[in-house]
C-alpha cells in the first residue's frame, strides 16, 4: 500500500462517514459539521490527486465560506430545530432508501464494469504551463474564458437575489429618537412590550405572553404571526385543497 492508497482509504472512509453523518444527524448543526468534515477529507483527496489548488479552494471556499453560510442561516432559522423521527410522507424513507440503493448499485456497477486504463497523471499537463495553478489559469482564461466570464453573471444574480429576498428596505424615513419616544409615550405602553412566552409555560415565539392579571397579551406576538394566521386563510387558494 502506497501513501496514496492509505490516504484514499482513510479519507475516503471518513468522507463517507461524514456524508452518512449528514443524513443521519437529527440536528441540523451536526449535519453541517459532518458536511464540513467530509469536505475537508475531500480536500485532502484533492491534494493527493495532484490538485493542490483545488484542495485549497475546497477548504477556503467550501469549508470556509459556503459551510459557514450554511451555519449562519441555520442560526437564523433555529439552531436546535431537529427533524422528528416520524416520516410524514408515507413510505418515503423506505422507498427512498431502496431507490438510492438501487441507483447506487447501478451507478457503482457501471463505474466498476470496466477496469480503468492506467492513470496518465497530471505531471505532463502541469508541465506544459509550469505548475498546476498556471495550467488551470491557462484553461480558465483560455478555453473556458466564456464560462468564466459568464460566472460573473451568476455571482451578480446571487447577490441580487439575496438582496431582493432578504434585504428589507424602509418604506418610511427612519424615526428619530425623539419621535420614537413620543410615539411610545402616546401608545399607552411606555414600557417595552412583553416578550412572547413571558410568564407562560413555554417560551415559544408563538405563545403569547401572560400579563400580570393572567390574560394573554396579543401585543407580545410578532406581527408576522398574526399575519401568517390571516395570510394562511386568506391566500389559501381553493383549488389546491381539492
Amino acid at each position: 500500500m502506497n501513501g496514496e492508497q492509505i490516504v484514499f482509504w482513510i479519507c475516503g472512509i471518513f468522507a463517507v462517514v461524514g456524508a452518512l453523518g449528514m443524513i443521519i444527524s437529527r440536528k441540523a448543526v451536526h449535519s453541517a459539521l459532518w458536511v464540513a468534515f467530509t469536505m475537508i477529507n475531500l480536500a485532502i483527496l484533492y491534494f493527493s490527486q495532484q490538485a493542490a489548488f483545488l484542495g485549497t479552494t475546497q477548504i477556503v471556499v467550501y469549508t470556509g465560506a459556503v459551510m459557514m453560510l450554511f451555519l449562519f442561516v441555520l442560526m437564523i432559522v433555529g439552531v436546535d430545530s431537529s427533524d422528528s423521527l416520524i416520516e410524514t410522507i408515507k413510505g418515503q424513507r423506505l422507498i427512498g432508501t431502496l431507490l438510492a440503493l438501487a441507483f447506487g448499485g447501478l451507478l457503482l456497477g457501471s463505474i466498476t464494469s470496466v477496469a480503468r486504463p492506467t492513470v496518465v497523471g497530471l505531471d505532463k499537463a502541469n508541465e506544459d504551463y509550469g505548475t498546476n495553478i498556471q495550467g488551470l489559469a491557462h484553461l480558465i482564461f483560455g478555453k473556458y474564458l466564456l464560462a468564466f466570464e459568464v460566472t460573473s453573471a451568476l455571482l451578480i444574480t446571487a447577490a441580487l437575489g439575496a438582496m431582493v429576498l432578504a434585504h428589507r428596505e424602509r418604506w418610511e424615513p427612519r424615526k428619530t429618537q425623539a419621535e420614537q419616544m413620543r410615539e411610545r409615550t402616546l401608545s399607552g405602553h411606555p414600557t417595552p412590550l412583553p416578550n412572547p412566552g413571558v410568564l407562560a409555560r413555554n417560551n415559544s415565539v408563538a405563545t403569547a405572553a401572560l400579563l400580570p392579571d393572567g390574560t394573554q397579551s396579543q401585543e407580545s406576538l410578532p406581527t408576522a404571526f398574526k399575519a401568517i394566521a390571516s395570510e394562511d386563510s386568506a391566500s389559501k387558494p381553493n383549488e389546491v385543497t381539492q
Partner: protein
Amino acid sequence: MNPNYYIALAGILFTIGALGVLIRRNAIIVFMSVEMMLNAANLAFVAAARETGTLDGQVAAFFVMVVAAAEVVVGLAIIVTIFRSRRSASIDEPSLLKY
C-alpha cells in the same frame, strides 16, 4: 492507484447526497445534501483529470465551486424567505401546490 476507486467513492457520496435529499425534511440539510452531490461530482472530476492527464476536470471542479457558492446564496435566500413567512425550515411544510 485505480481511479475507479475515486469514482466509486464519488458515486457513493453522490448516492448518499441524493438519499439525503429524499429523507431529510430540513430544507437546509436537503440543500447540504445537494452540495454533497456537487462535491461528489468534483471528486470525480478531479480523479478523472488525473486519470486522463488533462486539467479540464480540475477547472470544472473549480467552476462547480463558484457555481455552488452562487447557488448557495440564492438557495439560502429562498429558504430564509420561506422561513420568515412560515417560521419553519421544513421542506414538507410548503405543500399547498399539489395535485
